[in-house]
């Protein structure tokens, strides 16, 4: 009988950190990182940022990209802005702590009137992203995004949108689409649910006219014939999937729920480069690529200055749209 003693033992003590801390040290040419590396996940365990952080921890250690122990620390709450506030103040000048973040935080900074923002951090890399889909129940009369948007334009209140909490990526996508067809923000009838999972029932039960969520979150519902995807928010069709993009339907709108990492304020250019090199190696590794496929995350790797510019442009988009849809006043 083959028992997996290690997981059993670890499980019993729930010492999640211990495993990676035990990884054997490997010879390393570069001198970064020179001491224990901490990844700050600005979310409670379980969510996307936590999963990304733990995947980074696992890949960096197991692929022997770094020879020091890597630790994940959770500091959740308020769309990551609580973690951000701590990172910007307490970790200033700390070159051995990096923080996971993403589009949700960019929106959250405005939404929560956060006193600190991402400009104070040093951009490292955008890593992954998930695209959003617009879906209707299988028995809906709408078969294309154009039909739905035409009905919406004619009578905005006749379309009830369902998705994640107000002000999040899902809501922002509806805001962008409304703008594209000239429906003003105060006419949007948007119903917020605690997440894509909770919204499934509202869509397949026909409670809402159409719903927005991450592609993978709902793809099984489509395979089972309960839902129909009208469009996806990516630039191009996803490989192996026939869902047309929003652009193909004639609306110039793209959006992704992207995630990335930043370094603390005060990180010098040389260290920033060493950090980016470390993340590039991670992204090239086999286990990172496999994990991306498993989680259905797209590789959106973009580093340094280009990434910083991207954060700025996202910031502008979020601010504009959140104001239009009436979330920001």
């Amino acid at each position, binding site marked *: *009988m*083959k*028992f*997996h003693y*290690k*997981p*059993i033992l*670890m*499980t*019993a003590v*729930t010492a*999640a950190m211990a*495993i990676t801390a035990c990884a054997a040290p490997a010879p390393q040419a570069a001198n970064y990182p020179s001491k224990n590396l901490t990844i700050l996940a600005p979310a*409670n*365990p*379980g969510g996307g940022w936590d*999963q990304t952080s*733990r995947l980074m921890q696992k890949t960096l250690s197991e692929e022997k990209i770094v020879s020091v122990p890597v630790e994940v620390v*959770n*500091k*959740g*709450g*308020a769309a990551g802005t*609580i973690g951000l*506030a701590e990172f910007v103040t307490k970790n200033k000048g700390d070159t051995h702590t990096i923080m996971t973040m993403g589009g949700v935080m960019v929106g959250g900074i405005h*939404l*929560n009137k*956060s006193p600190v923002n991402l400009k104070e951090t040093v951009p490292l890399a955008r890593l992954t992203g998930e695209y959003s889909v617009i879906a209707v129940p299988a028995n809906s009369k709408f078969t294309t995004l154009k039909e739905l948007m035409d009905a919406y334009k004619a009578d905005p*209140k006749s379309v*009830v949108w369902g998705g994640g*909490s*107000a*002000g999040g990526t899902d*809501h922002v996508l509806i805001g962008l689409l409304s703008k594209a067809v000239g429906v003003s923000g105060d006419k949007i*009838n*948007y*119903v*917020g*649910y605690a997440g894509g*999972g*909770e919204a*499934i*029932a*509202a869509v*397949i*039960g026909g409670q*809402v006219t159409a719903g927005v969520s991450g592609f*993978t979150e709902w*793809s*099984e*519902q489509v*395979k*089972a*014939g*309960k839902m129909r995807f009208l469009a996806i928010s990516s630039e191009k069709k996803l490989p192996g999937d026939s869902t047309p993009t929003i652009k193909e339907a004639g609306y110039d709108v793209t959006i992704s729920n992207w995630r990335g990492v930043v370094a603390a304020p005060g990180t010098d250019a040389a260290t920033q480069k060493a950090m980016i090199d470390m993340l590039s190696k991670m992204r090239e590794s086999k286990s990172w690529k496999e994990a991306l496929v*498993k*989680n259905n995350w797209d590789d959106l790797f973009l580093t340094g200055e280009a990434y910083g510019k991207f954060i700025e442009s996202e910031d502008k988009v979020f601010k504009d749209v*959140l104001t239009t849809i*009436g*979330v920001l006043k």
Partner: protein
Amino acid sequence: MDIFSNLIAGFGTALTPENLLFGLIGVVLGTAIGVLPGIGPALTISLLLPLTFGLNPTSAFIMFGGIYYGAMYGGSTTSILVKTPGESASVVTALEGYEMARRGRGGAALATAAIGSFVAGTIATIGLMLLARVLADFAVLIGAPEYFGIMLLALTAVTGLGGDSAPKAMFATVLGLGISMIGIDLQTGQARFTFGVPELLNGVEVVAAAVGLFAVGEVLWNAGTGKNSQDEVIKTIGTLMMNRDEWRRSIPSWIRGSILGFIVGVLPGAGATVATFLSYNLEKRSSKTPEEFGKGSIEGVAGPEAANNAAAGGAMVPLLALGIPGSGTTAVMLAALQQYGLNPGPLFFDKNPTLVWGLIASLYIGNLLLLILNLPLVGLWVKMLDIPKPLLFSGILMFALVGVLAQNGGTVDMLILIALGLIAFFMTRHGIPIAPAILGVVMGPLVEQEFRRALSIGRGDPTIFFQRPMAAAMLALCVIAVLVPIIASRRKKSA
């Protein structure tokens, strides 16, 4: 029959020594974290996720199932003995359970909770096995107007929690509703009652509120009134286990609680906590001795304890049959399935029969393990009450604070806990009941969000609540629930 051959194959999967071991680890771990306030099954499973990569999915899920049920049980132990609910579904248990413990029937309360959980688990497993697909299709037809009716009905339980003074109960309820609205509003994204404190943006968690108001309040009250510990030593009266009368009263409650809990658990928008309040309400209304409620009624423990376990089983229906998570824990289990490249959805049963039926069988085995583990331990748990009061209470305070600290690592949460304890202290001092405030915290966001969702879905037309037969029926029940006690008391007075 197809289902039975599948289930037998499922037991075959679950009963390998390796999987049994994981099931055992799961229930032990689950019981332990259920005892700690703040650390719930959702958090535990998500922390364990990276460690279970190397396991095959069946073993991992057998362990997760054990954690889920174990937490449901562990949470009730501390609820009963020291009024410290370990998770939100055992908040109601503290109401009657703690009073029973004070009367010296703590052993019986623990026993009825354990056996009730087992009975409920059995009924829920059978329900899951036979009705999963039918119920899943029914569950998605329930929309916001119906949920609003269900939530409002649960909120009418307040008429049973009020004690003697209706205005005081109303005050407590409104206070609870106010606390529940702290944080970012889901429908508009606006911050409410946060006073610029970022930690308040996420709101006050149900468990933190319950532990603060119940446990910390109780500790402060005992310390503040300075009662000599000798006065209130709780001694076991009669048998440790349930006596004949307690058995007779528990059995119908278990069955009612199980059926109610299972049905509510199946609805993805409701969940185990709502089920416990509805069950408490039902028990009080069907009891021959409603005046005992609030003073340690065994029905008030048996019903909700059965309901929360049955709801945990019921929540597996939308998860496995549709891929819809109905609670925080099932949401994490969904994430876990996705890590294995398994996407639960309407085709999940057909594509992964081994895993699904193995999981169903292991849930059942988990229940049995819990009963075997916990019944002999009842005597040991009750001994906890022999600890001198000052030590016991400082211990509770420490556990409560460590629990919230472990969850988020922030001092603000601990301050919130203490503030709530102080509020509870003054409420007790002025004879204001605590339980309605907790009911307000639990039900507030649910009632409010569903109400506003329903209005959005109805394009602003309030008649949506009466156009849909089930919603209308629920609201009619609410009216009856509120009016009947008033009319009854008027009659009594005039007679």
